[in-house]
């Protein structure tokens, strides 16, 4: 009896010291980013890489960092959406910082969506998931310099943005 007692006491005391740190685990699925894949406009099934693409959010000066760089070279990119408003506008600048000004081309894409706040855990709090507007999910316009749009077509692949494991938007250029 006394042994059980001692054991319980020690056990109870040890619990206070092994309280789980309230830190949100990096592997937890939290607020997802919008995943964009780039395709060749001439051959819609072939992925095409962009060169030195910089995506700048509305009201921001720095480009979005993806894979450690603000210059995106690849056929896919993930961008964060604003969690407090129902629309986010991005400037998609191709060949950003290129010495030849003619090569630089800017398109503006405004994404419209609705948001939902979902509970994750004590440590992480809530996350926001999005649903792209079924009527006008995006508005695509040319940039400040009228040099034509470099993006040919934008297509919605998945309108619900809950994970980063799938493509939500397809861009053909």
């Amino acid at each position, binding site marked *: 009896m006394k042994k059980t007692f001692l054991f319980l006491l020690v056990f*109870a005391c040890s*619990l*206070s010291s092994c309280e789980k740190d309230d830190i949100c685990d990096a592997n*937890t699925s*939290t607020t997802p980013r919008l995943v964009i894949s780039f395709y060749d406009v001439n051959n819609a099934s072939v992925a095409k890489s962009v060169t030195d693409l910089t995506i700048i*959010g509305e009201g921001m000066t720095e480009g979005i960092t993806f894979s450690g760089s603000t210059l995106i070279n690849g056929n896919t990119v993930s961008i*964060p959406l604003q*969690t407090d408003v129902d629309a986010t506008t991005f400037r998609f600048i191709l060949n950003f910082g290129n010495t030849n000004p003619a090569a630089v081309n800017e398109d503006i894409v405004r994404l419209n969506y609705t948001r939902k706040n979902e*509970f994750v855990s004590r*440590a992480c709090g809530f996350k926001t998931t999005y649903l792209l507007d079924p009527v006008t999910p995006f508005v695509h316009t040319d940039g400040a310099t009228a040099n034509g749009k470099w993006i040919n077509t934008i297509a919605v692949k998945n309108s619900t943005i809950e994970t980063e494991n799938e493509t939500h938007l397809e861009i053909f250029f």
Partner: protein
Amino acid sequence: MKHTLKYFFSICLIFCFLAAAAQEKPAPKNTTNSEGILPEAAVSKAAVKTASSVVDSIPVKTDRYGLRVGIDVFRLARGLYDKDYKGIEVVGDYRLTKKYFLAAELGNENKTTDDDRLNFTSKGSYLKVGFDYNAYENWLDMENVISIGMRYGFSTFSQDLNSFKIYNANPYFGEKPAYPSTERYSGLSASWIEVVAGIKAKVFNNVFMGFSLRLNQLVTNKKPENFDNLYIPGFNKTYDGTFGVGFNYTVSYFIPIYKKKIKLAPIAKKEAPKK
């Protein structure tokens, strides 16, 4: 002097009950040692003799049975210094047999938890019913308790989400401030099993002071949609979903109902076969 000793012993019990428990053993040990010298036949005779002489010379020892009711002082005190907490717990136990007590706790809590990412208020009442087993062998007319027991706890409560933060691993647009919320999750309930280790020491007359440590394991848990029961009144904070710890510090009053004489004969019988 007697009183000083009583207090001293009570304090010892509260703070280092293990030391007090260690002193429990030597008494019977000495008697067995001295008896061990005698030949077997003589021992049983002597044991019977001493037993009867004990009954003759010492006034009959009685155990008091009754109801002990008290209040958790810790929960009350916490309400004074912690503005985010208000709670009350009434405790009671009824002595069933020499060792077993029927025990219960009834309480109400209102606690606001302010975490990094969440701020919520849990409100509700709870009832815990179970038993305590007194593992302590009292001397003379002492009525101290060192117990281990179990409870089944049940709580009905509501949770108000006051504010929350969105976790964004990519805070390109900057970390947003907490969102205010008026969401109320009501009609929640939970039940759990508790293992209780406790001490009660008689400080004077019928007044006892005690504390207990509790380990809780959830059995049922009715969670709200899009939130979790992060704090359950009576159960406390939920760790890893189903685990919890508890504590109380009680002052209680013993209401004696009847007395039972302690029979000394079984003790003499018990000692005889040991040889």
